[in-house]
Structures are given as structure tokens and as C-alpha cells.
């Protein structure tokens, strides 16, 4: 029997679950696929409910992890297999090589000399980075990552004199013995290339809501300047397309819960930056749950922000200007119109990270990729791995799963 707990996923709910269990004395392992902890919240400019920047919540969490010997975490790590049963799981974890050792060494001089550019996935392809990188703000662990496969031969030669870099590091597999498992694998933005009638990702000035977060973030590719990707121009007339993939049985057959609020929040980003900009939000139903309704009312009271009931069903690029033409029927007036925007934001939904990927035996997912059941077996889901949530509810769900995991390992 093991009293340890494994948390899969180092985002907001995973970290919360891990800390709650660790702070009452349990040994906890966090397994994170990315090179840094923090998950999707790291990519946001501001997050609900209080519109804090991510550093606001996450830096405290990272401090708690640092100060608690019960928490051990592995980055660039994934669960390979789960065997055994409740109270006595054996979990195989594969850890990819990072090629950069511990110690907060500054490698920015080496990075400058590298030739190859790599598309930055953290910035949702809005910019490039080098193969040696630390692309997240206030990175934890504050340790660079090297992608050996993206280096030229000359690049590799540059590393020979750098002590922190070990090019011979190899992938390893470790085995953990734990009593219960929390799955907090979170979500990924729905793939826009599947939205064939909404430009399928080919229209330059039609961006996703997560790209908008990066454009608005001070740590982002434009240092917080919201500009058009095609020409860097300041947008004056911006459209938001709600339910881009969500509530659609051909794509995500559920409501992603937070996209309406995210768009209203982003409308506020734009209005703060550009006092003359006009904004139109195209929606099916504006879903502003609970206390968010007050926020929505305040944003919509702005006479430059206009909400139109009608889903955009066609997006095309205007050749020359790079503007985006949307076709939509305003269901209140019964007029089908083509409206031109210089920047269009698709409010793409949340898809569970486990959708379409193989999951270890013991973890059950539904047809959309959300984790269902499994609690009797001692495997608990937390956060957006279970259902679409906001950050606040994600943390609550992390705490709840920690409690269940603790109850499992101490046998009550």
C-alpha cells in the first residue's frame, strides 16, 4: 500500500490538487507534459474572476511547491502505463530529455547565436523562437529547454563549451508507486483548421481567442500591443465569433462555458487600448453564468460594443485589404448581411487534452474526450479534463479531487 498521490497535469487544477494533498502531509508527484508548470493559465493575459494576470495566482503556487518537500514534479513527462489497483498503483512515467541541467544559468548569449527558427507553439504560431528556449513568463522551473532535432550542425557545435547543456541526455522511464491518481490533464484549443466555413485557419487576420490573449499579454510577441498579424496595423473594427466549434455536433458537442466571457473580457482589452475601436460580438446565446452577468452588463453598456444574435457561418478574406468578411443573419432583425472587420477573433472552444489521443488503461473517457467515472478505481478527474470550467472552478475541482485522493490512500 502506498500513501503517495500522483497528479497528471501541472496546470492550475493539478497544482492545486497536489498542494492541497501535500500540505496535509502526503507525498505527491506531478507529471507535466510541457517543459514548464502553469498550463493554459500561463498563456492568458488576464483571467477570471478578478482579471488578474497569471503571475498573480501562479507565482504563489510555485512558491508553495518550492517550499514543500512533499511535492515532486517531473516536466516533459508523460504517463506511459498504469497497473495495479486502488491503494497500490504502479505507474510508468517516460521523461523526455531536456538537455539542459538545473541551476538558473543565463543562456541568452548562446541563443542569439543560433541560426534555426522554430514556430513558437506557446505563442500559438504568432512568432518564432530558437531551438534553445524558455518562452513562458516567470518560468517554473526556470530552466531552459533544448530541442536537439531542431538544431543545425553548427548550432550543436556552439553547445560544446556550455556546461549546463548535456547533449547526451536520453529519454528515461521511471516507475512510481502511488495509492491514488488525479487526472488534471486540462484542455487544448479546438483545432481551427476543422472549421471549414470559418476560414479553417487560412485567413491571416482571423485569429483565435487564445491568440488574442497572447497579443494582449505584456509577455507576448507584440509586448501587449493588439495588432493585426498580417501587417501589424491597429484594428479599428473587430468582430468576435462565438461558438467557433462549441455547441456543434459536427465539432464539440457541448458549451465550452467560458468563451462568451473571454470575448467580453477581450473586448475590454481592445477598448482600453483603442478608445475609438468598434467591436461586434456575434453569438447564439450570450452565456454569462452566475456573477459574470454583472461583468457582461458592464461591458455591453459600452456603446462601441455591439452584440448581434446570429452565428457567423461564413468567413472569407477580402483580397488586398486583408480584411475579413463575415456572413451572418441577425436573428432579431431577420437580415442576412456581410460585415467587414479588420480583425476577427474566433472564440474557439475547449477540447479536453485527452480527445483523440491514446489514454492509459484505467482511465475512461467519453466520446468527446472528457474523463468519466473511474472514481471507484481510485482515479479522479479534476479541472477541464472533466468538463469545461473557468480557473476559479478548476481550482475548486482540484481541491475536491485532492480530498477524494486523500480519502482513498488513507482508506476511509
Amino acid at each position, binding site marked *: 500500500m502506498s500513501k503517495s498521490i500522483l497528479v497528471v497535469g501541472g496546470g492550475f487544477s493539478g497544482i492545486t490538487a497536489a498542494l492541497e494533498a501535500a500540505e496535509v502531509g502526503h507525498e505527491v508527484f506531478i507529471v507535466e507534459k510541457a517543459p514548464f508548470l502553469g498550463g493554459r493559465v500561463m498563456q492568458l493575459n488576464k483571467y477570471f474572476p478578478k482579471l488578474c494576470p497569471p503571475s498573480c495566482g501562479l507565482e504563489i503556487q510555485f512558491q508553495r511547491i518550492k517550499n514543500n518537500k512533499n511535492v515532486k514534479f517531473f516536466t516533459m513527462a508523460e504517463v506511459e502505463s498504469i497497473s495495479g489497483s486502488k491503494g497500490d498503483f504502479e505507474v510508468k512515467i517516460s521523461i523526455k530529455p531536456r538537455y539542459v541541467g538545473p541551476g538558473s544559468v543565463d543562456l541568452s548569449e548562446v541563443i542569439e547565436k543560433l541560426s534555426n527558427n522554430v514556430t513558437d507553439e506557446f505563442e500559438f504560431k504568432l512568432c518564432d523562437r530558437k531551438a534553445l528556449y524558455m518562452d513562458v513568463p516567470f518560468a517554473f522551473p526556470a530552466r531552459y529547454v533544448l530541442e536537439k532535432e531542431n538544431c543545425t550542425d553548427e548550432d550543436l557545435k556552439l553547445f560544446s563549451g556550455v556546461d549546463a547543456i548535456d547533449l547526451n541526455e536520453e529519454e528515461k522511464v521511471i516507475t512510481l508507486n502511488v495509492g491514488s491518481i488525479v487526472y488534471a490533464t486540462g484542455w487544448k484549443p479546438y483545432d481551427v483548421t476543422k472549421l471549414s466555413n470559418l476560414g479553417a485557419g487560412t485567413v491571416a487576420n482571423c485569429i483565435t481567442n487564445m491568440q488574442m490573449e497572447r497579443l494582449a499579454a505584456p509577455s507576448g510577441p507584440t509586448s501587449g500591443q493588439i495588432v493585426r498579424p498580417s501587417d501589424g496595423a491597429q484594428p479599428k473594427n473587430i468582430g468576435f465569433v462565438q461558438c467557433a466549434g462549441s455547441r456543434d455536433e*459536427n465539432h464539440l458537442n457541448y458549451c465550452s462555458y467560458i468563451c462568451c466571457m473571454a470575448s467580453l473580457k477581450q473586448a475590454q482589452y481592445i477598448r482600453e487600448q483603442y478608445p475609438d475601436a468598434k467591436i461586434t460580438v456575434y453569438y447564439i446565446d450570450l452565456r454569462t453564468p452566475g456573477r459574470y452577468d454583472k461583468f457582461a452588463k458592464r461591458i455591453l453598456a459600452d456603446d462601441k460594443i455591439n452584440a448581434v444574435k*446570429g452565428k457567423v457561418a461564413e468567413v472569407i478574406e477580402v483580397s488586398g485589404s486583408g480584411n475579413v468578411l463575415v456572413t451572418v443573419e441577425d436573428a432579431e432583425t431577420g437580415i442576412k448581411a456581410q460585415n467587414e472587420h479588420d480583425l476577427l477573433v474566433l472564440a474557439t472552444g475547449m477540447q479536453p487534452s485527452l480527445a483523440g489521443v491514446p489514454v492509459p488503461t484505467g482511465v475512461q473517457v467519453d466520446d468527446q474526450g472528457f474523463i468519466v467515472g473511474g472514481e471507484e478505481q481510485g482515479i479522479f478527474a479534476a479541472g477541464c479534463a472533466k468538463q469545461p470550467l473557468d480557473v476559479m472552478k478548476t481550482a475548486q475541482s482540484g481541491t475536491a479531487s485532492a480530498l477524494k485522493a486523500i480519502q482513498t490512500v488513507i482508506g476511509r
Partner: protein
Amino acid sequence: MEKDIRIKPDLQFIKELQAVGGDGVKKCYQCATCSVACPLSPADNPYPRKEMVWAQWGLKDKLVNDIDIWLCHNCGQCSDLCPRGARPADMLAGLRNMAYQKMVTPSCFGKWMSSPKHLPKLIAIPAVIYMVIWFIMAGVRGSFFPLKDGNVVYGYLFPGDFTIDPIFMIAFGFMAWTFYRGVKNLIESFKDQPKVFAVGDKSERPSLLACFVDVCRNELLTHSKWKECGETDEADEQKFNGHRFIMLAFIFLMIVTGIVAVTHWGGKIIPFLSAIGHTPMPLWHPVKILANVGAVMLVYSLVLLTKRRLNQDESQHKSSYYDWYLLGLIWTIGVTGIMCELLRLAGIAGLAYPMYYVHLVAVFMMFVYLPWSKLGHLVYRTAALTYARYIGRLPMPVREEKTFTL
């Protein structure tokens, strides 16, 4: 709100609509994707989103008087993109089916045509008529399967002048008269449609005739509007080509029938005419060749259309009884028609005459019940599209403005 509007939902109507193809209607959440997806829907009050909400609210009056259901050519793009699987295309088809059912009296035909359980009655009417003729003529000829000079001659058992032609002329007249009343009812139902006023447009409103000519040119003969319905996958090709070929086949066969009728009856006055259209025709006869080409085209298009319906994804498009009735009937007409010719040439009287009998029954069913069948769209849609142009719901082709500067 200037005035409160009290909605009186007609629940019975919703149930009926669900039964004829609109069963997805309650899934709709009014996102309006369908109105945008439709390549033909006008910008002002586009369909089918508004029809979906009317149907949910049970607004029967709005729906039965709606001209827009006839503007839809059922390409199904709205259903393909519908996020809820509410199948708006099938609902509009369902509304058209209801129109076929209720457009004209006697209403019993409309009811009988709406469900397979009444099919025996519909078959029985022509079956009895032609059976009586068969019995009488069998008595006259001395056999149920008589040969004339050793050959199978259908006109020998079912004489054209006294049995076939009078019955079909009455049937045709009945059909035409029914359609006349149907179109009158249809146009009457559109009286509350908003009229379009073009401000500053000095040109005159198009005449009904001009509208009709435009419909024939741009919709009927070339199918060019329908072609705008966009998609290019295999199923759409099957549908488009199938429909075009089947229409051409019918036109060919109509010409053949016309020539035969005109030369036969005209031959009573101008004797040499009767020689041209005398049946049975030899296989080298140009009219016979046209008839055979028409028959082959008919079967080919039936294969296309049937294949498409069988391969449809049921979650997005369902075929109704109206669809299958018509396909089944035309299959029967096509197959029995070809078999009649082959069996006649082979001289197998015992099979040829029963085959001819089935053919007669099927053709009778097509003509007499036509105004209540899906094929009624040939007349009703044409009328509605003409009227839609007349009141400005659909635009007439843009006149070319020629300006000469000297």
C-alpha cells in the same frame, strides 16, 4: 413593444409536420447558421431559420402561407452545417409535402398519398378499371392473352381508341383541372406576402409572363439556380444529374406520346399522318429511337437518384415516404415499360399482357395523383417561383444597361 402578440401554438400542426419530415425541428436553437449556409436564401428575411422558429412555436398560418419553402431546392447545405442535427432542409421538404397533401380537394387523395398504409386504395382504383377492360376484351378476343397474326399487340387487348385514350384524356383533364385549382389556392395563400417596392427604380414591374419565361429559362430547363446550390461531392452530382436526366427523359417520352396521339387522332382527318405514328413502330423509326433513348435515360437517372438516397447519412438527411413513393412509381413505370417492349418483341404473351397491365396502372397513378405527389413540385414550384419574381421576393436577371458615349 408597441403591442403584445399572443402566440397560439397549433400543436396538432407541429405533430403533423414532424410526421412528414420535420422531426428535427425541436432541436433547433436558432443560431442562424442555416440561413447563411443557404446559397439561394435572400438577404432580407432569409430562410430557413425563421421557418424553424415558426414551426417550434406552431405558427401554422405563417408556415402554410410561406412562399419561401418553394425557393428552397433542397441541396441540404443547411442540414450539413447545422450544429444540432435539426435538419432544416428536411423540414422545408416536409412543409412542401404538407402542401401537396392539403393544397386541393378531394382531400382524401392528399391523405392517401401521405402514408404507405393507404397505398392499396390508390393502386386499386386503376387496377379495377383496367381489370374490367381486360375481362371484357378477353371475352371479345376469346383469350386473356390473345395474339394478332401471331404477334403480341397491346392495342388488340386494350384498344387505344375506346379504352386507353379516353381514360387517359379524362385522367389528364382531371389532373390539369386539379392543378388549376391548386395553383389558384397556392397564389391565394401568398396574398399576405410583403410586396417589394424599389425606391427610385423607374423601370416597370415585370409582368407575370416575363417572370414565367425567366423561371422556365433559368430554373426549369437549365437548372441553373439549382446549380448554385454549391457543393460538388459525388452525391450532389448524382442528385443534380439524376434530376436533369429524369426531366429530359420525361420530355422525350412526352414528345413521343404527343407525336403518337397527334398522328393517330390527326390521322382521322389527314389520312397520311396516321402512317407516321402507327404503333407498334419498327425499331428503326426515329420516334421509336427517341422513345428508347428516353427509357434508358429514365432508368439511368433512377439508378443515380436511388443510390444517392440509399447512401444518405440519416443523421443529416432523411428520405420521406413522398420521396420513396415517387421513386418507386417511376421505377415501376420505367421497368415495366421496357419489359413490355422486350416481351412483345419476344412474343411471350403470358407475361407481356400482365406487364402492360401493371404499366397502365402505374402510369394512371402518376397522372391522376400527380397534384398530391412530390412530383407536384413541377407545377407548384414553377408557380411559386414565378409569383416570387412577380412580387419581388426573387430578383429578375439584371438588365444590361448599355451606355454609349459620343
